[in-house]
């Protein structure tokens, strides 16, 4: 049996993969993190001397019940999250205490997820959350570089002196999140976190010598960006032409809906593909989304791997049918 750990809403990719699993004759159970937080979906995770068992059941979820007695051979770890119930926070009110408690509670909900994972330690995972958790951007950059991939010069610092030296050296730099950026909705307004250029102007506006730990990278003079989906040794690449459009020149995720960037299939040089395979092997990942920039001088620069990256945005424009490939992989490993 294939176990899919997903979330409830707007998960078209998950649904297409499930369509393919059904079509190709696979068996699956899907559990959504949202379900687990609902009050009418009771669950229990037992770890004791006598037995170890997980069970969940309830209304409004698309399986009758899941217990760890179902023989789960492979787990697809896909956008899983247990939201922490806002109704509990109301009991504490707002303010400083609530904010701190909230932080703790999200950690607790996350901890409950590990209870679930503990029940399927012997299954094959696509991919294992314990591995994913350990992969931080700076570590991946270092490993990629050691394997012979170019990486952009990167600085993590807390002070203006270092930053000025870095900007002087590279003339154009950007800042971005060290971890994954998040999307926020506050009072009905959406906020995203993007890559942004930092110039002497911004630095001049800083009032103090020190600032919050931040990551800076040299701005690559790019010909185009590449978004790559890697699955079990196979490399599916797509080129993104964003340079013509000032709105997306620094960060292509700032979509221009009127005149979207060009997304076209791409074939990386064999040598780069081989290095990516080595990298994924070293990171112990079976799948992931990889970002690469090709500079105007033709050189390829590795930016990052996101083990949980969306692949629908590569699959659709390139007509790669990656959802089918993922389904085939899961079915093959379900034994």
């Amino acid at each position: 049996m294939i176990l899919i750990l997903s979330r409830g809403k707007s998960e078209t990719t998950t649904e297409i993969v499930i369509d393919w699993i059904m079509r190709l004759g696979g068996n699956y159970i899907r559990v959504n993190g949202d379900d687990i937080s609902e009050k009418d979906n009771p669950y229990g995770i037992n770890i004791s001397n006598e037995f170890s068992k997980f069970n969940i059941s309830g209304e409004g979820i698309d399986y009758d019940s899941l217990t760890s007695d179902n023989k789960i051979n492979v787990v697809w770890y896909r956008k899983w999250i247990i939201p922490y119930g806002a109704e509990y926070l109301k009991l504490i009110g707002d303010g400083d205490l609530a904010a701190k408690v909230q932080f703790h509670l999200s950690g607790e909900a996350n901890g409950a997820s590990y209870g679930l994972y503990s029940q399927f330690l012997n299954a094959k995972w696509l991919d294992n959350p314990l591995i994913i958790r350990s992969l931080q951007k700076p570590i991946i950059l270092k490993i990629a570089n050691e394997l012979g991939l170019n990486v952009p010069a990167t600085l993590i610092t807390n002070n203006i002196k270092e930053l000025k030296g870095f900007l002087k050296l590279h003339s154009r730099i950007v800042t971005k999140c060290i971890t994954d950026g998040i999307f926020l909705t506050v009072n009905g307004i959406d906020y995203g976190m993007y890559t942004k250029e930092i110039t002497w102007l911004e630095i001049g506006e800083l009032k103090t010598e020190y600032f919050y730990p931040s990551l800076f990278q040299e701005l690559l003079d790019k010909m185009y960006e590449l978004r790559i989906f890697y699955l079990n040794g196979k490399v599916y690449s797509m080129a993104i032409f964003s340079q013509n459009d000032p709105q997306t020149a620094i960060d292509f995720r700032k979509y221009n809906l009127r005149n979207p960037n060009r997304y076209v299939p791409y074939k990386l040089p064999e040598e780069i593909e081989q290095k990516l395979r080595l990298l994924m092997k070293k990171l112990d990942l079976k799948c992931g989304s990889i970002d690469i920039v090709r500079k105007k001088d033709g050189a390829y620069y590795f930016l990052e791997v996101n083990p949980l990256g969306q692949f629908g945005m590569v699959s659709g424009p390139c007509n790669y049918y990656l959802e089918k490939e993922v389904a085939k992989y899961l079915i093959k490993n379900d034994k």
Partner: protein
Amino acid sequence: MEDIVKLFACCIPVKGHIRSIICDIQRMKYDFIPNTLYEILIIHENKSLAYIKEYYGNEHDETIEQYFAFLLESEYAFICQEKDITRFPKLDLSWQSPSLITNSIIDLPEEQLNLDFHGISKQLDELGCNALQIRCYKDIKLENVAEILKAFSRSRLRHIDVLLKFNSGYTSDDYEPLFADNPRLFFLTLHSANENTIFSPQGTTLCIHLTTKKISSAADCGCINPSYFSPNIATFTEAQNHNTCLNRKISIDSSGNIKNCPSMNENYGNIRNTTLKSVAESKKFKELWNLNKDKVSVCQDCEFRYICTDCRVFKTDDTDIYSKPAKCSYDPYTATWAD
């Protein structure tokens, strides 16, 4: 090393009898180009500007330059170094779907509404159907529509369209709950209305479309005009080998008969005693699925053939299954629309 003006893989030229189009299946639009440019793009693909100019005896240099300037300005093409040509493969135009049935039409019965919609929903799920259109030509109470939609609320459908007769007794406030209760309802068309307008219920991206057109039966279907063209990757790839209207469609007409399309005469049994699956799996039912425009007379010479819909019911020649849709007034041999 020479620079090449290369089409983006998603911008695909299609040749018609006297002119061609470039289908931009990513930005979902198309542009007319002369057949001479089509020829240059196909025969001299990946050749440098200098080579092409010389091929035409350097007699048309200015025209060729204008062509390429147009392609670059419209962002149909980019400048690619010769050594990078192999980095940019063509788009794979194969069309695949995990579903035996991808779309379905149900025409509501005129008298009593006693079809087992829960059962139909389950059956469509089993076939993997993602899109459903529900149509009603006569007056119907909104609460009945709500009741029918409820039967599909837990299905695998991702997209539901509803077509109803305009009823001046209802205001847009009456329709809004339909959307709120059915997140998969995207499009509501009200025919026989007193105006033509499209609006979105408050704070949604959903669409209510009022049209003065009177749609009184399934016979009002099958119209073809440019506003129905879909220059997108889904249609373009499906059209390579399949019929863009009937492929993987199953319908239930207003008498409960199971058909390819409600307007057709052939029926494959009644929903009250026949399963959709048994019909969908029968060989005869699938016969028209692969009848694409390359096989239809006239259409096969039309530049719109991969973005156009089709109709195999209302044809110019009733006895010829390969004849052109009757409700299309386009003539690709003169490149003109009759109306």
